[in-house]
């Protein structure tokens, strides 16, 4: 048996043991259908089989996993969990299918409506219900750690080889592995009264969750709409979380769900020798799609990349590594054993996870979150403050113009001249490019250095910052009573705006065109990214913000890049000291 197979078997066994332990003593005997009231979608009807899954300890653990991680420390009312979100996803996916069935029964899509029957609806509802069952404590934050562990990398590769290059999110892989585990299948077959059980294949449900299209067994048809409903550009997951996250946080973001539901459809579309059943948006439903995309972008700005949320997550990340350092967590599957509440309950642990670098106990790290005793921002990196040094573009323009004139004079091939002119036109308008590329490369190195840093490198980097800060303190005759875990450097990744890549617009004559080529939502996303992206340095209350600001500036300055007015973005800074430092 090779290493990859051994790792896969070990991983499967661990998942199976986890599921088994959660479901073993659970009885579904007295379950019955229910109507559950939801703050976003109102009353939602759940079938008996769904209640049997919802009431299981495996599903109930989602109540203790906050949907937006630790954002509730910034938005106090954003305390909703993965549990509500999963129920909401079922509600909205049902509405989507309902509208499609209604529309097709009125029009000519009989073949579609035949396929979107009750069995199909149940299948999609099941996928929506369990799509987040693999989430671990702190939601997406923990997956940024276990997703990089050696064992998980091997599993990712396994999925990529199995499903033609797919790279699902780590929690999606865990969801897939949970529902396809033998323990879950046994539970499902023996204790869940799913109608027409023979129609269900757990691997298909898993495929919908990880974003793989389901093909029928005869190889003639594929059903990409099933996957698009659960893991696509405008999937039920997104429709729910955009509404729920903004509503719970108290943000005035919205999109026209009613219009959106009227404007989606499922159509049969020839695709590489098969017929694909595709989810499409009618031409005049674009506005609703735009609203949804913008709401999502704004959620990044308001919540996910809010500076206070970022620092909370950075402190929480130290907790995760601390749990690994003290060997409470040794394997990616161990993450499943803990919920947010379980982590909080470790607040009494008197063990020093990083004794070489810090005298802090595990309980100190956890208490910082519990008491919301968070480090403060001492530096902000953004596009506005990063300037390229000494650049005079007129010289470059003149040089390029001369070269072009020279080329045209000497080249006799008209086609080559045309191509050269095209290149010239493009480059002339982006004349800063060469200089910019070099400077940008430096910026890129700075940013990439922090974004792709593993924990070891991050500790080294914080240590370097710490030593510089110590020097500054000592030069001023001050006592150092902090350590490197009082310093956090966060340069987040750009916003994720995948919307529009795989969606299709349906014109009034039935023709389809990729949404991306029709309207450049992605380019709006790029522009949003360029203007809204921020990186930060934070320090705990033990450290003077002005001194930390001075050291932080040094991190991002070099011969090609200078910082302009960086102090304008920091609160509680001592301007006299800043002036004094710049004179030095």
């Amino acid at each position, binding site marked *: 048996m090779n290493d990859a197979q051994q790792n896969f078997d070990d991983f499967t066994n661990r998942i199976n043991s986890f599921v088994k332990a959660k479901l073993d003593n659970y009885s579904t005997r007295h379950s019955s259908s229910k109507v559950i009231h939801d703050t976003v979608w109102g009353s939602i009807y759940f079938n008996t089989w769904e209640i049997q899954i919802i009431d299981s300890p495996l599903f109930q653990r989602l109540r203790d996993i906050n949907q937006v991680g630790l954002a509730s420390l910034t938005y106090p009312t954003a305390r909703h969990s993965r549990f509500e979100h999963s129920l909401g996803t079922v509600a909205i996916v049902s509405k989507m299918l309902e509208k499609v069935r209604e529309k097709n029964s009125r029009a000519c899509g009989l073949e579609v409506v035949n396929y979107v029957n009750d069995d199909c609806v149940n299948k999609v509802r099941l996928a929506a219900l369990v799509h987040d069952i693999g989430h671990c404590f702190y939601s997406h934050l923990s997956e940024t750690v276990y997703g*990089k*562990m*050696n064992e998980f*990398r091997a599993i990712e590769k396994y999925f990529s080889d199995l499903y*033609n*290059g*797919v*790279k699902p999110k780590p929690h999606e892989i865990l969801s897939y592995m949970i529902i396809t585990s033998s323990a879950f299948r046994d539970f499902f077959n023996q204790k869940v009264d799913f109608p027409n059980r023979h129609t269900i294949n757990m691997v298909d449900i898993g495929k919908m969750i990880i974003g*793989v*299209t389901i093909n029928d067994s005869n190889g003639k048809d594929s059903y*990409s709409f099933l*996957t*698009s409903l659960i893991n*696509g550009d405008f999937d039920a997951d997104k429709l729910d979380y955009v509404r729920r996250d903004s509503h719970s946080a108290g943000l005035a973001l919205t999109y026209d769900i009613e219009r959106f539901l009227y404007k989606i459809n499922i159509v049969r579309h020839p*695709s*590489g020798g*098969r017929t*694909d059943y*595709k989810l499409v948006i009618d031409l005049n439903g674009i506005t609703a799609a735009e609203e949804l995309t913008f709401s999502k972008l704004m959620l990044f700005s308001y919540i996910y990349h809010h500076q206070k949320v970022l620092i909370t997550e950075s402190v929480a990340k130290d907790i995760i590594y601390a749990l690994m350092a*003290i*060997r409470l967590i040794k394997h990616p599957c161990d993450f499943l054993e803990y919920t947010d509440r379980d982590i909080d309950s470790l607040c009494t642990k008197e*063990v*020093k*996870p990083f*004794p*070489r670098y810090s005298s802090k106990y595990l309980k100190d790290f956890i208490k910082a979150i519990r008491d919301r005793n968070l480090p403060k921002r001492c530096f902000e990196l953004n596009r506005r403050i990063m300037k390229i040094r000494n650049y005079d573009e007129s010289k470059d323009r003149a040089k390029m113009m001369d070269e072009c004139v020279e*080329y045209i004079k000497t*080249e006799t091939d008209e086609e*080559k001249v045309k*191509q050269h002119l*095209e*290149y010239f036109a*493009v*480059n002339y308008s*982006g004349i*800063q*490019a*060469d200089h*910019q*590329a070099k*400077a*940008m*490369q430096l*910026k890129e190195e700075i940013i*990439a250095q922090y974004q792709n840093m*593993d*924990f*070891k490198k991050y500790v080294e980097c914080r240590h370097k910052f710490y030593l510089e800060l110590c020097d500054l303190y000592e030069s001023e005759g001050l006592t150092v009573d902090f350590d490197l875990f009082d310093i956090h450097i966060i340069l987040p990744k*750009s916003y*994720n705006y*995948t919307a529009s*890549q*795989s969606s299709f617009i349906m014109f009034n004559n039935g023709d389809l065109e*990729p949404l991306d*080529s029709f309207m*450049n939502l*992605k*380019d709006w*996303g*790029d522009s949003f990214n360029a203007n809204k992206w921020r990186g930060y340095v934070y320090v705990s209350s033990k450290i003077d913000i002005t001194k930390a600001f001075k050291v932080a500036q040094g991190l991002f300055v070099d011969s090609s890049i200078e910082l302009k007015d960086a102090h304008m973005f920091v609160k509680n800074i001592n301007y006299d000291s800043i002036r004094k430092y710049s004179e030095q």
Partner: protein
Amino acid sequence: MDNVLEIEQLGRMFSKPKISAYDFLKGFIAELAINNIVIIPRSQITSTLFDYSKNEKYKPLFEDIGFNQYGDTVTSYDIEDSIANLQVLGMIGKLNPSFERIVIYLDKDLSKNICDSFDEDTRQRIESLVRDFIKQLNRGQYERCSTKF
């Protein structure tokens, strides 16, 4: 202290792909620039790279790149994200008004520096992939790409 893992030991519990999606895309455009290809159609990049990702020879280059297929449509967040980052960082641009083509702004020296930053094995694989890509270009299997003379 014996019960606690050292940072070094913790570090060994993690790994990362040999080449990131962003670095691969950067190497790809740099190698194109070295070969004088400076304008490429944007629409076909993902599906083209998807085809190459299935080739055993090129698989190691795609370790950090995920693809999704919806029927005959292939998408890749990693490729789109890397292209966006390359644009933000000034290495490429997109031609107005419909952004259907990507313009590579790298000059040869910078491109060479980028390619030299990869280990020999990775560099050879990228070179070979770009050679194959250019062969396909020459066979007219893609929309027109412009070259710099």
